[in-house]
Each structure stands twice: as C-alpha cells, then as structure tokens.
C-alpha cells in the first residue's frame, strides 16, 4: 500500500499560523482523498518555520471502480423528454438500457467509472489544496498569481511503496513538484532527495531540522529547565511563549544569560513582560530570592563558539531594553500618583463618556456608596478608586499596556499607601475572564464593582449595548465580572439600586434583563436549567443575585427530589384546569375559597394543608431559608394528589365548582410565593 509524503517548502511562516496550517493541510487533503474513494490508514501533519508537511499512510493503489444508475423517462415518453435526459447524462439513445417496471418500460442510464490511479488523483487534489489553502493572511510574490503565506519555493510529493518511491508530479504557478527538500537555512543549506517519510524525517534531522513542533518544544523546555536547575534556579512556565518559540526555530539551541544587576530590582512582572514581548526570552527565577535573575533565549543554530556571540548580542539588546524599562520606572516613581491621575483629564475614555479622569471621579463616588455593603471602609475605597487607574498615565504602562494595574500596585506601595489600596490597583480589573480569580479583599471588591457598574451603566446610557457577536467594550465580560464578584463574595446588593448610583440615563430595567441573561449563561455551566431560573426571576428582589441564586439552587434541588417532581405534576394539573376554566368562563377565579363549601374530606384536608403551608412559608421566606420553604411546599403533595383523586372540580353545583376553582387558585398563589412553577418545563 503506497504512502504519501507531501511537503511545502517556503520562506518563514509566522509562528502563530503553523499549528493551524498543519491541521488544515491534513484535513483538506484527507477529506479530498476520502471523497475520491481513497480510504487511508493514518495521517499526520507537521510544521516548522519553513515547511508544512503531511504524511498519509496506507493508501490504496487505485480508487475503487464505481457504477451509477439513473432512472429516466418511460421508453414511450415524448421525444423532448428523452432528449433532455440524454443531455443530462451525456449519453446516446442506444447507450440507455430499457427495463420493464410496474409503470411499464423505463429508460435507465448506467454509467461505470473505472478506478483511478492514486498518483493521478493526488496530482489533482494536491494543487487544488494549495490554491485554496485557508491562510489567515496570504500574499503574492514576483510575477506570480499564486497566493501562499510567504513565497513558496519547492514542493515535495512522493508515493512510496516497498519497491521504491514515485513522484506525484504536478505544476503550480511555474513550480514543479519533485522528490527533494532542503536542510537548515544556515547549518545545512543543501538540497537532498528522500524516498519515504521515515527517510525524510531522519535526513532532515541529519540536516539539522527537527520536523515535529512538539519535539522542538519539548527539547527547549527540557534543555532550559536543565540549564536553570544546574544553577539552583527555576524556569518560569510560559506555554504560549514556548509554542511561539518552537515555531521560530528548526534546530533549537538553548542559551542562558545574565540580567545585569542594575535591573534586578525592577518588578518581576516588568522584567518578564519586557523579555517576553520584545525578545521572546524565558524568565529564570531564583527560588531563594523569588526574583527573576536570568533569562533563556533560544537560538536557531549551533555555532563554533558555542553560542557565545549570539548570547552576547542578545544580552546587549536586553540591556538596552531594560535600560528603557528602568528609565520608565524611575521617571514614574518621581511623579506622585495624584499627579499621574490628573494627566488622565486629557485622555479620552469614550467621546460620549468623557475623559478617563471623569470616569475615575464617577468610580470613586460609586465605590464610596458600595463600600459599606461589602464591608469596606468608605474613605479607603474612595482613595483606592482615585488612584487605581493612575498608572494608565505612567510611562511603563504606555510601553507595556498589559502591566496596567500591576504598576499601579507597585507605585502605590512605593508611595506608602495602605496595602489594601495598593492591592485594589491590581485587583479591581478582575475577574478578567471566566477562569480568572475573583478578588475577595473588601476594598478591591468595592472598586471592582464600582468600575464595572460605571462602565455598564455608561454604555447603556449612550446606547452602545453588545449586539450579536459584537461587544467592542467587553460589556458581557464586565457583567459576568459583577455576577461573580457578588456571588462569590456573598454581596447583598440590589442591582437596580446600584445602577441608579451610576449613569442616570441608563435603562435600568433593560440592563437588569441583560444581567439575568448573563446569569443564565453562567449558571448553565453549572448545569442549572434556564427554566428553573425563569421560575425564580419573576419573584420580587430578583436584582439581589445572592438571594436569587439561593432560591434557584433550592428549587433545583427540590425538583430533583421525588416530592418536588410529583408536586410539580400536581401543580400543573391544578393550573391547567384553572386556566382552561378561566378561559372558558371569561373570568378569573381569584376570590378566597371557603372551607364551608367543601363537600369532601380530601377537599377539607387540602384547605388545612394550604393553611399550614402558608403559616410555615412566612418565617422560612423571611429567613431566606428556601430549603425550609420547599419542605413546606412538599407537605402539599399528598393533599393535592388526594384532592384530585377524590374530587371532581367541575361539580354540578356552581357554588361548589367556583369554590374549588378558587381553591386551585390558592394552590397557585401559595406556591407562587416560592417560585413561579408554571414557568417550569416537564
């Protein structure tokens, strides 16, 4: 069974595109092979900075022959109909077959496709995949019309069998596929021929190219870790950087270098960010001091001087970069935070929402109001809010926007501000996503809530709500942040009240609905059904999310129990009858039922049970003990069941019938104090 080896050799492919491109190559080629009737045993794709490679193992030598049959018109159909059919199938009249069917003699077109040689199929499939490859960005070069991620230099495509390899030859935009590839750009820039995937992989290795990204990443991680460990240090994990660096080299060589002592006092985050963003260096930490003290760079080659020149060059570039960072750090420390914050008066936040300074003033006022509800000191919350975003005007954050908040924390500490205030600078941006940690320090929580509520009410006030997939101001994330801050810290706050502290023009009802939608998404991930949430949303205080979720969880638990399940059925029966009769009679049976009109024991028992349940519900709801409330409802299950067994609601006596309908209404009312059961499914 032949195996395919296919390599596209080009100028340097952006690291971030390589993995996806390898996946696409595999998917597109194998899909077309299967479509052509060629099943295969296994396929694997690889990427390096200069090549995409696909290996498909166990292809058949030929695609299977196929036979298709198409039913046409009756043999005695009008000439025009038969001509149309002949045109459609591309045959002559004498090539059709006539068969007797229940409907008489009918014409059939039988077409047989012989199997095709796998090499012929590949010679069509491969150029087609190249021409239509889904690069995120592609280009032309020279006089060509072909598009590829960067200029494509050669194509290797061979079918290998036990008795040798055969090239799959095709031309594309002046390039002819062949059986050769090239080694490492600098260490082994030779062209060589290969005859199988194993041969290709081992020759590449001999020519200083490691084909598999994961092997390159593994080698980098291991060598860097070993180098650090040998000096009693540890490598700072950075998976994204590792993946990127593995996409920048074909022959990784790890070099560890020193960070000049002048820079060791810079915040670790600054060293790490500068080295990662500008130089793609890994950070190496000293576990004893907790400081970043060295770096690891990954070169793409070995050299006669064991990388000494390369390391010296990298070290020099790092020195210049960190000199800049140190310059920013020292300049920033000279500026009092209040002065930094004042500069934000000239920075626009949004043209309809004023400057960053305006925004900070609003957040500070809000944080003050929110503080007592989260157990924070109001003065401290306000102070924290006033400086929490000051670092946006710092030189360091201008250079490294990802350090916002982190720098504020350092500058606040250096200024001798309370720890709570410094922590709030960093933490008030949180949570940044569903997986990010939620702050729990009261001052941080107050500022984080104030920040997000100001943003949400602000954008609601100017009608810039998220639509569909568009959410340019990350308002969904802000709402989820409020939800998590409130729930995880048990913050008792009415959101509508909180909104009223923000922008007055915001449509608070609409914003609350937006929050409820986000809450449903959040709770769905915890396997809570949306109808359970809907059943609770219709009750008062639905803007107190802690209360709301307590109710939702209790109801969910109750419905999962036998009592809950049965009570729901009893409720539905009562509700259905009541609704149907109300509709028929055109009235609402909202009057109080009277026990004196009860005719049956089961009926009287239900009256008693409802009285009892109501009496228990009051204190349970007062205490927000929803489990107890559910238990009180559970006691209704048996009397309701017994009532329906014993009693015909539609009695002959109008008085009795009316009384019974009012009794059903009372069931709905009593249960409705806990949740709107009619919103539940099932």
């Amino acid at each position: 069974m032949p195996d395919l080896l296919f390599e596209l050799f080009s100028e340097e492919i952006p690291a971030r595109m390589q993995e996806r491109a390898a996946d696409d190559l595999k998917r597109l080629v194998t899909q077309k092979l299967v479509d052509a009737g060629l099943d295969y045993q296994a396929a694997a794709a690889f990427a390096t900075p200069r090549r995409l490679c696909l290996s498909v193992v166990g292809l058949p030598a030929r695609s299977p022959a196929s036979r298709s049959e198409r039913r046409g018109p009756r043999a005695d159909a009008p000439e025009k109909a038969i001509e149309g059919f002949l045109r459609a199938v591309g045959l002559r009249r004498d090539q059709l077959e006539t068969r007797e069917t229940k409907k008489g003699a009918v014409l059939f077109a039988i077409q047989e496709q012989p199997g095709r040689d796998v090499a012929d199929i590949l010679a069509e499939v491969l150029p087609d995949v190249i021409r239509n490859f889904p690069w995120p960005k592609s280009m032309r070069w020279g006089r060509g019309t072909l598009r590829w991620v960067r200029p494509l230099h050669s194509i290797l495509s061979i079918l290998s069998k036990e008795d040798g390899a055969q090239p799959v030859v095709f031309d594309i935009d002046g390039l002819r596929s062949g059986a050769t590839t090239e080694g490492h750009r600098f260490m082994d820039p030779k062209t060589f021929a290969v005859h199988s995937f194993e041969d290709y992989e081992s020759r590449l290795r001999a020519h200083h190219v490691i084909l598999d990204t994961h092997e390159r990443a593994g080698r980098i991680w291991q060598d860097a870790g070993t180098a650090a460990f040998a000096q009693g240090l540890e490598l700072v994990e950075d998976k994204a950087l590792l993946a990127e660096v593995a996409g920048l080299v074909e022959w990784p060589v790890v070099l560890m270098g020193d960070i000049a002592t002048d820079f060791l006092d810079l915040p670790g985050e600054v060293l790490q960010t500068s080295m990662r963003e500008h130089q793609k260096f890994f950070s190496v930490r000293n576990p004893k001091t907790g400081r970043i003290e060295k770096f690891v760079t990954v070169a793409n080659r070995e050299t006669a001087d064991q990388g000494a020149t390369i390391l010296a060059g990298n070290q020099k570039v790092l020195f210049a970069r960190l000199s800049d960072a140190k310059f920013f750090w020292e300049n920033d420390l000279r500026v009092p935070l209040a002065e930094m914050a004042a500069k934000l008066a000239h920075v626009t936040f949004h043209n309809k929402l004023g400057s960053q300074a305006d925004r900070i003033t609003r957040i500070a006022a809000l944080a003050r109001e929110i503080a007592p509800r989260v157990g924070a000191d109001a003065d401290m919350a306000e102070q924290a809010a006033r400086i929490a975003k000051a670092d946006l005007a710092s030189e360091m954050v201008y250079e490294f926007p990802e350090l916002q908040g982190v720098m504020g924390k350092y500058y606040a500490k250096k200024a001798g501000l309370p720890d709570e205030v410094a922590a709030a600078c960093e933490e008030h941006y949180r949570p940044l996503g569903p997986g990010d940690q939620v702050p729990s320090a009261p001052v941080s929580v107050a500022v984080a809530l104030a920040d997000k509520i100001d943003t949400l009410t602000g954008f609601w006030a100017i009608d810039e709500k998220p639509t569909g997939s568009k959410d340019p101001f990350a308002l969904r994330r802000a709402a989820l942040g409020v939800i998590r801050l409130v729930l995880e810290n048990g913050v008792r706050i009415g959101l509508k009240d909180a909104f009223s502290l923000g922008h007055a023009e915001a449509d608070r009802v609409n914003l609350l609905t937006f929050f409820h939608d986000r809450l449903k998404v959040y709770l769905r991930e915890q396997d809570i059904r949306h109808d359970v949430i809907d059943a609770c949303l219709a009750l008062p205080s639905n803007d107190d999310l802690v209360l709301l979720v307590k109710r939702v969880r209790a109801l969910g638990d109750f419905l999962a129990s036998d009592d809950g399940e049965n009570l729901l059925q009893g409720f539905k029966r009562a509700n259905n009858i009541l609704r149907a009769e109300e509709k028929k009679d055109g009235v609402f049976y909202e009057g109080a039922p009277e026990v004196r009109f009860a005719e049956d024991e089961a009926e009287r028992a239900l009256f008693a049970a409802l009285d009892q349940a109501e009496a228990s519900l009051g204190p349970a709801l007062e205490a927000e003990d929803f489990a107890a409330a559910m238990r009180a409802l559970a006691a209704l299950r048996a009397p309701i069941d017994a009532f329906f067994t014993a009693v015909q609601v539609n009695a002959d006596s109008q008085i009795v019938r009316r009384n019974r309908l009012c009794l059903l209404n009372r069931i709905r009312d009593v249960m409705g104090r806990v949740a709107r059961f009619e919103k539940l499914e099932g």
Partner: protein
Amino acid sequence: MAKGNKPRCFQDVILRLQSYWAGKGCAILQPYDMEVGAGTFHPATTLRSLGSRDWAAAYVQPSRRPTDGRYGENPNRMQHYYQYQVLIKPSPPDLQALYLGSLQAIGIDMDLHDIRFVEDDWESPTLGAWGLGWEVWCDGMEVSQFTYFQQVGGHDCTPVSGELTYGLERLAMYVLGVDHVMEMPYNDPDAAIALSYGDVFLQAEQEYSRYNFDIANTDALLKHFEDAEAECRAILSNPVQDPKTGKHIVMAQPAYDQCIKASHLFNLLDARGVISVTERQAYIGRVRALAKSCADAFIQTAAAGADAA
C-alpha cells in the same frame, strides 16, 4: 568574509551596502530632496512599486520623525536618521539570500550569528499601502524590515515588489559595537579629522528637537498643510494633454511632492501636540486620499508601464 574585515565607521557601512547592491544590479539612487518620514516615501519606492515596469533601486534616505526627537540624548532615538532602502520589482526568488549577502557584506559573520525572520506585516495608513514580511533579527536585535508589497495607494501591486529597509544607525552601532549613536565614528577613526556621529548631528538634534516640540508655528503649519493638499489636487485636475507642447503629460510626480509635504507637515503638527486623537485619523485619511490620487495618476504613465497615448 574574513573576521578582520569589519567596517570601522558609519560611512563604511553605507559604502559597503551601496557597493553590494550596485553589484547585484540595483541603480544606486540619491536621497529624495524632500523631508520624508521613511525611505518608503521616496518616489523610487512608492510610485515605482506601481504598474508593470521592472525596477531595481537602492538608496540612502534621510528620514525625519519629529516625535522621536530626544535632544540627542537617547542612545538610538533621533528625529533625523538614515534608512537604507532597496526596492526590486518583481521580487526575485532569491531575495532572502541576497539580503543575507548584504549582512555579510557589512561584516556580520553568518557562521556565528543567529539570523531570524520574525513575522511583521507592514502597513502605511498614510500611503494606503500594505505588505507581508518580517522584521529580521540578528541575535535578538531587529536589523531590517523585509516586505513584499501587496498594495500601494489602494492599487494591487502586480508584479509584487520586494522591499528591504535597514535602520542604518542601529545596524551600524551593532556592527561597530557602539552603545550610543553620538559616539559612533562617522568617518575613518584614524583620519586626520576624525568625526563622530555626534560631531555631525548632535547640535542639529538639539536644535530640531526644540523647534519641533516647542517653536514650530502651528498656525503656519496648518496653513501649509491646507496649501499642499490644495496644490496636489489642483495639479491633478489639469487635463493630461499639455496645451503648450501638445504632449500627453500626467503630472503624478509634482502632485506626489505635495502629498509628501502634507505628510511631513502632519508629522510636525503631531509633534507639537495640537492634533487630538480623533482629528489624527482624519488627517491621516486626508494624506491617504492624496497618495491614492497620485497613485491613480502614476499608473497612467509610461514609468508605470502604461502605453504612451
């Protein structure tokens, strides 16, 4: 290249690049005689990358970026610096190898250094241009930009030009092992009158930094901007048939000069801090509109390969 054969001064680096690219068949042009922000603005790049005519040119271009002025104090940031620019159309298949040869020519030993092509796509909003390519790293330092032009002035580039841009001061400092640009030898350090880069440019950096940041008359600059914009449009509004000579003369290049002027005036206004964030986009859009009109005009000319009318 032997290790002893390293350049010894700034001009040596320039001369070696000139002779290298001359040897590879490029026309060695001189700087364009106008203030530009980058070598790309030279008509030998912007305009010549349009149309179907083949082209190969290399040149030094003094470049001005008023906002980068640091009074000559920053080790490598200045409001005036040199770029070395190479443009070859169509881009030859061995452009990467040619480029690496140029690094060797200025004394970078390919066996000892780590050269990397790191993704960096180029876009010039003022020229309505973009291309794909890399920044080239030597031992972690960016030494050049390498771009395959895809679009200029809103027109698809067919054929595609390959563009190389070297930041000469930074590259030379690296090759010469100098830490501060002003200390870099400009001519032969053993010459009777040895001059450093600072001897030549330090005073100018101070003068222009002060002028650009604090003195430039913004009202006059705004007026000049409007004038250049109007002149560009006026030039292009003329009929292509010259009534005096009776010849077909599209005035794309004089119009493009006005576009270059407008672009530099915008940069000066930006350095004076009188352009707000929202206005900024509008000004860039106005310069882009001019660049586009000039490109539209240029592709009708013989230099772009159009049939002479």
